[in-house]
């Protein structure tokens, strides 16, 4: 995490070394005990012997290598474009991939900037005392990588796009390794992991994902902290009156209430906020017809309870919940929410404050005039949608939490979260 007084490069190298030492210690400590979760991918014995900088440099090459895909035209960076804060370069609700680059992915592409290092493993704290559980900690689940949090480490997560038929579309890990063996940097891979590394495809496959992980965790390009808001937090810039009004609206728990989930204050050590609490939330974003899979009336992407994520399928209360994304660089995006339903920031904000006051604007209306709210969930699960936290509590016909002018102010504030090097996505 960014600490103003230190250089990022030094900080992350130090962090990585510390993490490895801590993990080794923990591994010894926990041997023979009930195994606690730790962020454990760095514990790989081979990776621990290789300098993090070597791994990260290799990971960079892999991240940008389109030859690792079946189409030969898709790399990680195709969707997670560094020019756009490692987010999507365009306004497609979901990106195209597959062998012919004509197959839709399942969900909108998130930015990879900032939050990877601090994404906790997927968890749901259980407080045994029911009174205290209710008072203090009956929080929704949190963490994990992906909109549904189904991966607890980046090196596990990396397998998904590499093998997903709608993305890089490799048929097997062996196919990925075969492509890696032909890559221009294959000798670098051998130098790092051993001359014989390609003789064992499963090990080579694991090693490449560790390198990818290191790049995403360590490379300074993922954590530039170069926005106006960062300068404001450091006392090096002033917000305009409009931006200040927007920040106040963003913070106000009785109105926008955004900062409850999109944390915007410095940590106690002066570290800058990441604008997410990693918790899951059910907003009831309308169904998006731009996603072809939604043509099937019985298909619902329900996030935490599936169908992409399988292990929480029995938890019906989790249906419709998706992980809160960071809002850093949100103003350069052209696609919002997990299903990319909205394409302007203004419309996304309007949805928040008018979802309940003007539901007919967002959801289908039957011939009898009935609004089918929360239409992207089966009717029996729509009670999962949040109607208790501001600004999601209003009655139909009531005044929205923000006026149009106030939305302008909030947009002005959100624009201060754009990094200096981040270019707006194109439509």
């Amino acid at each position, binding site marked *: *995490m960014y600490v103003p007084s230190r250089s990022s490069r030094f900080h992350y190298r130090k*962090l990585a070394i510390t*993490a490895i030492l*801590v*993990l080794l210690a*923990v591994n010894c400590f926990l041997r023979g*005990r*009930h*195994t*606690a*979760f*730790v*962020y*454990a991918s*760095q514990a790989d014995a081979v990776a621990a012997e290789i300098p993090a900088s070597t791994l990260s440099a290799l990971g960079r090459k892999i991240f940008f290598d389109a030859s690792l895909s079946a189409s030969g035209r898709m790399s990680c960076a195709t969707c997670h474009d560094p020019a756009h804060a490692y987010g999507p370069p365009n306004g497609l609700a979901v990106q195209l991939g597959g062998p012919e680059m004509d197959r839709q992915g399942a969900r909108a592409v998130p930015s990879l900037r900032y939050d*990877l*290092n*601090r*994404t*906790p*493993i*997927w*968890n*749901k*704290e*259980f*407080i*045994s*005392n*029911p*009174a*205290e559980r*209710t*008072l*203090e*900690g009956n*929080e929704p689940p*949190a*963490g994990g990588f992906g909109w549904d949090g189904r991966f607890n480490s*980046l090196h596990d997560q990396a397998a998904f796009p590499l093998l997903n038929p709608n993305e890089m579309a490799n048929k097997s890990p062996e196919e990925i390794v075969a492509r890696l063996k032909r890559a221009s940097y294959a000798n670098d891979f051998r130098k790092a992991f051993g001359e014989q590394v390609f003789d064992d495809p499963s090990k080579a496959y694991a090693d490449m994902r560790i390198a990818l992980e290191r790049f995403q*965790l360590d490379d300074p390009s993922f954590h530039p902290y170069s926005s106006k808001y960062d300068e404001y937090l450091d006392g090096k810039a002033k917000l305009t009156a409009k931006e200040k009004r927007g920040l106040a609206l963003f913070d106000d728990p009785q109105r926008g209430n955004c900062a*409850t989930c999109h944390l915007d*204050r410095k*940590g*106690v*050590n002066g*570290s800058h906020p990441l604008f997410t609490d990693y918790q899951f939330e059910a907003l009831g974003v309308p169904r998006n017809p731009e996603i072809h899979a939604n043509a099937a009336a019985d298909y619902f992407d329900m996030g935490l309870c599936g169908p992409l994520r399988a292990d929480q399928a029995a*938890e019906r209360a989790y249906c419709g919940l998706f992980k809160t994304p960071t809002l850093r660089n949100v103003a350069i995006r052209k696609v919002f929410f997990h299903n990319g339903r909205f394409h302007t920031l203004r419309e996304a904000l309007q949805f928040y404050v008018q979802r309940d006051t003007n539901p007919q604007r967002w959801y289908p209306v039957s011939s009898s005039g009935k609004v089918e709210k929360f239409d992207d969930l089966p009717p029996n699960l729509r009670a999962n949608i949040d109607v208790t936290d501001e600004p999601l509590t209003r009655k139909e016909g009531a005044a929205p939490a923000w006026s149009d002018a106030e939305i302008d102010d909030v947009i002005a504030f959100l624009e201060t979260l754009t990094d200096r090097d981040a270019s707006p996505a194109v439509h």
Partner: protein
Amino acid sequence: MSKFSWKRVAAAIFAATVAVGASHTAFADKDKHEDRVATAAAYVKHVFVIVLENKNYNDTFGTSTQDPYLQNTLVPMGGLLTQYYGTGHVSLDNYISMISGQAPTPDTDNDCLPGFTGTIGNYNNVKQTGVAPQGQVIATGGCIYAKNVPTLPKQLEAAGLSWRGYMGDMGNDPARESATCGHPAIGVGTDNTNSAEAPSAAVPLGDAYATRHDPFMYFHSIIDDQASCSKHVVNLNRLTADLKDERSTPNLVFITPNLCDDGHDGSGTGEPGTTCANGQPGGLASADAFLKTWVPKIMESPAYKKDGLLIITFDESSYTQSVSTSSTGQTTVDITFPGQTCCNQQPGPNLSGVRPGSFTLVSTPTLVENIVINGFGGDRIGALLLSPFVKPGSTSDTAYNHYSLLKSLEDIFHLDHIGYAADDRRTHYSVDTIGDDEDIFFPGPGRGHGHGHGHDFDYPSDPHFKHPWF
């Protein structure tokens, strides 16, 4: 049969004289070096306190199968206080009572969560309007006591004695709280330590420190001096080094495990959906594992072996739950805390209209969920004492609570009594001091016995008495 001793006779005469002529507090002021307890607890110079969370006495020391180390190994080694009570529900007020004798404010009784019984909440100053008998702060709410409110740590410092609070996980995530004297900024709103943080790449072990289980953070007298506070309230990891030498072991070692290790989080079964944020089972299972790790370290330390007393207890007891379903199909779940007290516990000046109390947490056509707190006490939790001066396998049915604990520590360390640890002769209020409990402790030199000229041992051949105070 005890041997006759002129020293004991002289000490008894002196003690009787003092009892007639002076209050207990004045006794302490006049001669801090006289033994204030009647048993071998007088020899104790290092006290270790481990506070666990939210369990009934009958579970912890009876029916639970999750804590075999505590029940089957430690209990036979120590003295079990069967009638030890918490002083309130929910957590924070218990911790505060242990180190200050203060009864709750309308906020500290609900862990300073805003919107329940308090109007201030979060990590904000106590709004004091006066002082009631026994130094009780009268307050409309708030959580951090003013600088002039007495505390056990400040008493220890004034007496030239040392103390440290050892907090599990504190500072694991330095953005969440500092690794020393870790607390939220005053007045900024939500306390982010209310929820446990799961492990991430940046915080590989996660962070389950909870400010509300760290009583030292609620007194300006402690937190305002940052350098002193950072020296005194540290991460639990520090304890291993501090235990190595008697000189580096503080006189008072106060240990709060993290939210998982203290049993607060998790069911203890390990069943999916009922674990701690870090995946551990929590409950008494994790508390037992914590004890299995740390109690041997403490008992092997030179300070404990010489003159140590380890007290293992809980902040408060748990609840009972009843479920009923009406003819219309509405299920009502009542979660009831008896709120029982012992020891003539007083509610303090701030709980009128607050305790007893009830909250309806859920009210739908199919489900009603009520929390009912029928009293202002913390119910029966029990405590286990381990010490060279404690009779192995002993039990005592004398009633004690956290105010008794405070009084007991003050007696052991020859300090004045503060808050509800002090007697009130007008109302005949007085709590027992654990050091007087002859069911638990071996006989000692006798109350009022001086320290400058040696002790008489009733059982000089007893191996427990190889390491007296001096």
